[in-house]
C-alpha cells in the first residue's frame, strides 16, 4: 500500500543533507510551509541554497534560517534592502542570485518537465543578461535560461491523501505545484487529511507522483 504520510517532523526532515538546494513554497505570508521550515531549522542542515520568491521581511519565516547562518545562497526575485537578507547581502555575508519571478517559476517547471533549457525575452535587454548567452528569435532578443532543480521542496497544501495527491487553497497555490515537480524529494505539509478517493480526480492540482512525504499539520 502506498502511504506517503510521515508521523513526525523528524521523519519528514530525514536525510536532508548539508549543501542541499531547498525550494521553499509560498508568496507573501500565503502558502509558506512554516512548520516545515521550523523543522528544517531543528533538523540542522546547513550550507543551504534556498530558492524562494523573496528574501523575506524581518519577522518572516525565512529570517530565522538566515539569522542562524544556515544559508549559503539565496535564489529569489527580490531582496528588500531593509531586511536581514538585504543587510547580509550588503555585508557580503550572503550570495544572492536575483531572477525575474516568471523566469524563476519557469526554470523550476523546466526542471520538473525535463526541459533542459529555454529562451525567454524576459530580462534579455537588461543588466541581468550581461555576459550570458542571448539569441534573437522572431525579432526579439531572448535569454537562454537553464532549469532550476531542487534537492528538496517544502510545500504547503490544503488537503492530501495517502498517495500524496494535493490541493491548495485560494492563492496559497502559488509556487508550490512547480516546486513539488522540480525537486528530488518533495515534502508537503497539509492542513487536512482525506481518505484516498475523496479528492475529485479532476480537481487534484499536484498528483501524488510528485510528492514523497506528507506531514499533517492542522491549521
Amino acid at each position: 500500500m502506498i502511504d506517503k504520510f510521515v508521523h513526525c517532523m523528524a521523519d519528514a526532515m530525514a536525510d536532508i543533507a548539508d549543501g542541499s538546494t531547498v525550494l521553499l513554497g509560498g508568496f507573501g505570508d500565503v502558502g509558506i510551509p512554516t512548520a516545515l521550515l521550523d523543522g528544517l531549522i531543528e533538523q540542522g542542515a546547513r550550507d543551504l541554497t534556498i530558492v524562494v520568491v523573496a528574501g523575506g521581511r524581518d519577522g518572516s519565516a525565512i529570517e530565522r534560517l538566515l539569522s542562524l547562518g544556515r544559508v549559503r545562497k539565496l535564489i529569489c526575485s527580490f531582496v528588500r534592502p531593509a531586511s536581514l537578507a538585504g543587510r547580509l547581502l550588503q555585508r557580503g555575508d550572503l550570495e544572492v542570485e536575483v531572477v525575474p519571478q516568471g523566469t524563476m517559476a519557469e526554470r523550476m517547471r523546466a526542471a520538473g518537465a525535463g526541459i533542459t533549457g529555454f529562451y525567454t525575452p524576459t530580462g534579455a535587454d537588461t543588466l541581468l543578461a550581461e555576459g550570458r548567452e542571448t539569441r534573437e528569435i522572431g525579432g526579439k532578443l531572448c535569454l537562454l535560461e537553464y532549469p532550476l532543480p531542487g534537492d528538496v521542496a517544502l510545500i504547503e497544501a490544503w488537503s492530501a491523501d495517502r498517495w500524496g495527491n494535493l490541493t491548495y487553497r485560494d492563492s496559497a497555490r502559488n509556487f508550490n505545484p512547480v516546486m513539488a515537480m522540480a525537486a528530488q524529494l518533495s515534502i508537503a505539509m497539509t492542513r487536512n487529511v482525506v481518505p484516498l478517493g475523496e479528492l475529485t480526480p479532476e480537481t487534484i492540482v499536484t498528483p501524488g507522483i510528485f510528492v514523497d512525504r506528507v506531514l499533517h499539520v492542522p491549521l
Partner: protein
Amino acid sequence: MEVSPLDRNGMAAWCARDIPEGWLVNLGIGIPTLVADFVPPEHEVIFHAENGVIGVGPAPAPDAVNPFLINASTTHVTLRTGGSYMHHADSFAIARGGHLDLCVLGAFEVAENGDIANWARSADEPVKQVGGAMDLAIGAQRLWVVMEHTTKEGEARIRQRCTYPLTAKGVVKRVYTNLAVLDVAPHGFVVRDMVRGMTLEALQARTEAKLHTEFSR
C-alpha cells in the same frame, strides 16, 4: 489659472477610465494597484495578480479577510465571481505569453523610445528588486506607466533615454503622471491630456524629452 497636480488616487482614476470592459489587466505594486478602486464593479475588467489570481476583487471587509487570498502586493483581496487560481508558472505564462491586454506599472523613468526603468537605481546597487516586472513588461500587449512626472527633487523622469538600468526596451505605450497623459509614439512622447491649468510650455519645462502634440509628423 493655477495648476492642480493629481494625487495618487487622481492618477489611478485617470488611468482607470481608459480601460475598456473585458480587458485582462495586471496592476503593479504602488499607485497601479489603486487603479482597480476606480473601475466600477459592473464594468467587467479582469485583474490578474502574478501570484496566480485571475479576477482579483476589491479589499475585503475587515471582518471578512480570507488569509489565503492576497494579490501581488501581498495585501488581502477578494476574488471576483468568475475568478480562478493557477500556479506561478502558469500565471507568468499569462504575462509572458501576451495574454494581458494591459499591464500598469510604476517606474523611476520612462524614455521616448518606450524604455522603462523601474527596478534599480544604479548598475552597482547591491540590493536589487526585480520581482515580476521584467516578465510583465515584455509580455503584455500594452504597458502603461503611472508615476510622478518628476522626482521629489524636481528631476525629469520622462526622458530621451533612461539613465537607470532598464527593465525592458521599447515597451511603454502610455504614461499617466500627476500632470499629464503622454502616449509613446514612433516619434516620441505625444501629449494626450493635461491637468487643469497646465500648459504645454510648463509641462515641457518639467520634461527632459521633447513633447509632441501630433500623433504623427
